[in-house]
């Protein structure tokens, strides 16, 4: 008695028709396309989130750097925007010279922590004109560009030292002279008007378009800075 081979029985019972394969492939295609779509969406979300957080970090750093210098400034010189309604970059600040030496070259140019000797304030006993420092330094904030980046640069005029304050990815073909599409910095007084010499507070507004797919979505940060040295005397 010879037994019937088992595999013959299994083959006959487990075979798939063409229709079954087609259905299976269709389901597989749907599942894979969903996975692909999800993956792409995830990647886009990842990129968008990264761009936005990166932009916010950079915007915050620009505001912080401007705030430190604006508070110390004894004179400000803004550029009036093309529409004549706001102040914008380049901005030149005159600051009392509190250190006798700055780092003059390299990526940390103008960073007093690198090398700096303290200068104490003084009083003119002849004129009795109040407190003063023996010298001042001038600092300019301006737009810059490098490759596909838009940057904000802090430049010390007197020793020609520059360092990059922040950098934004350039998603558009906008020219450097037209920073609006990527990055815009404006300055107004507390009443949101042009700044004049009697104003004691400056509202700094920085606007960026960090999302390459939706440049119309703006990341906007505002900061109000009191010009402390306006009372310097």
């Amino acid at each position, binding site marked *: 008695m010879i037994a019937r081979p088992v595999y013959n029985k299994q083959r006959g019972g487990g075979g798939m028709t063409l229709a079954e394969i087609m259905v299976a492939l269709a389901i597989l295609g749907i599942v894979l396309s969903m*996975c692909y779509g999800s993956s792409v969406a995830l990647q886009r979300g990842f990129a968008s989130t*990264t761009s936005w957080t990166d932009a916010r970090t950079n915007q915050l750093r620009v505001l*912080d750097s401007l705030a*430190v210098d604006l508070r110390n400034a004894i004179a400000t010189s803004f550029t009036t925007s093309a529409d004549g309604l706001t102040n914008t970059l380049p901005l030149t600040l005159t600051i009392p010279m509190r250190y006798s030496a700055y780092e003059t070259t390299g990526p940390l140019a103008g960073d*007093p922590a690198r090398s700096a000797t*303290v200068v104490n*304030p003084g009083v*003119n006993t002849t004129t009795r004109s109040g407190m003063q420092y*023996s010298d001042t330094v001038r600092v300019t904030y301006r737009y810059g560009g490098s490759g596909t980046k838009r940057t904000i640069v802090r430049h010390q005029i007197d020793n020609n030292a520059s360092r990059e304050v922040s950098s934004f990815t350039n998603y558009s073909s906008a020219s450097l002279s037209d920073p609006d599409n990527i990055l815009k910095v404006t300055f107004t007084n507390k009443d949101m008007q042009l700044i004049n010499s009697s104003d004691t507070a400056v509202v700094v507004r920085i606007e960026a378009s960090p999302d390459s797919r939706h440049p119309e979505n703006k990341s906007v940060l505002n900061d109000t800075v009191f010009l402390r040295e306006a*009372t310097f005397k």
Partner: protein
Amino acid sequence: MKIRSTSQSRTASALVAVIITIAVLALLASSLVVNVNNRRMTLSQASAWQEALAAAEAGVHQGIAQLEQGLAQNSLPLAGPSPFPSATATSTTTRVYLDHAGEGPSGPSNSYADYTLTYNSYGANPVKPYYCIISTGTVGLPGGKFLSMDSADAVLRKLNLRTATRTATRMIEAWVKPVYTTQGPLKTDQPINLNNHNIFVDSFNSADPSRSVNGAPDARDSNGHLLTNIGQFDAPNFNVPLSANIATNSPFANIGDATVYGDVLTNGGATDGNGATVTDISNVKGQIINDYYEPLEPIYAPQWSFATVSNSVNNSKTYTGGTAASPARYQVGTIASIGNIRLSGGKQVTFGFGTTSGSPDPSKNYIELYVTGDFTTRGGGNTDGSVVIVNGVNVKIYVAGDLNFSGNGLINYNNKASSLEIYGISPPDGTTQTFTLAGNSDFYGTVYAPGADLKLAGGGSSGEFVGSFTGKSAFLNGTTQIRYDEALDGTGRISSFKIAAWFEDVRSLKASKTQPFTGQLQQF
């Protein structure tokens, strides 16, 4: 056995595929979460950096509050070793704690400021106390050094991520200068009322020959007619900033169309519409400013170790002076038995030189008088009494009650406001105090009476008050002129401190320890 093996193999491959898919997705998701969390921590660190500035500024304000408390308690270190408070190279550091919430360790000890006060003396006669306040604000940081911080962040913020206690630290160096009671022609705590359009308030400088006539604001002929009037800025134009600013801590100021050669400063005063609280301002040459407030420190009764005490004075009397180092001090009445000076019927109080070997000695020209009651020069007699200050004599008068210089009033032959200081001792709460300055002669002197209602009334065709005047409220009428002597600034008493310079030391903590700010003024 083979059948089982084939079946297990098919099951395992599906499971592996699922696991791999889930793992890939999980990796993507976790990468996103880690990245976003790192960015959040970076932003939180930037936030902590901002909070450290608030902490540092809180330390500066605490230092100013400490100085103003010293003023109120009359214990300001105006002299003595430098730096304050001891003759050591480093001033005492005080720590204040602030509440902290949000990212990072919570609790007040995680946010604090350390500040030092350093005393500097500036100038001579009088010496002005300038203080340097160096305050370091520290706030704990969320996250760790594994966070990917941009190099630009490192340059700007210099966060301390190296030690077990990660912190954001910022340092402020602020300079404060004293504000004196004589800084301005008229200051009050309550409303100002200039009740006549003939009133004017201007300034001159008795120390500047080009802005005074032999130290006076004007020159007159023997008949009293005006020859030259220096103070009014429109005749002639001296092209100097208007300095005759009148100020009140209240929102109310009726200017009465008086001419003010300076600003009118109020605390929230309005000039427009039916709700105007600053009214009739058509002749104000400066600006109307509504963000003014300056505390008026109270005046306490003198605590002298020695004084010549007398009963009330109703007859003519002469007070003689001592030296600058040891002024002659007189007290009328006591706390238990209040004494007044009331002059009438031609009676006269004279402040003159002390004597040496029976002769007047010009070096004995400082007199201080404390009147525990009222001081008036008008009474019921046929003629008015008066107060006379001999040329060259400097007088300080403290009055605890009311003061009324009417009738013949006060004659200061120095013709210099700095030679007479009148202080109104602050009365108890609910007690009214009145200081009235009128009289037939021009008044040269300063009045600081933060608890008194001040009334300046011009006599005859002209009532000229040369000096600086401070009261609880002020009422001017008649043909009154306040002529502020700019040379007075820096004399009198310190009323508060004002920030003269403010600076953030942006260097790293390590660098600032190597090259610290010393809080010492240079002299150019």
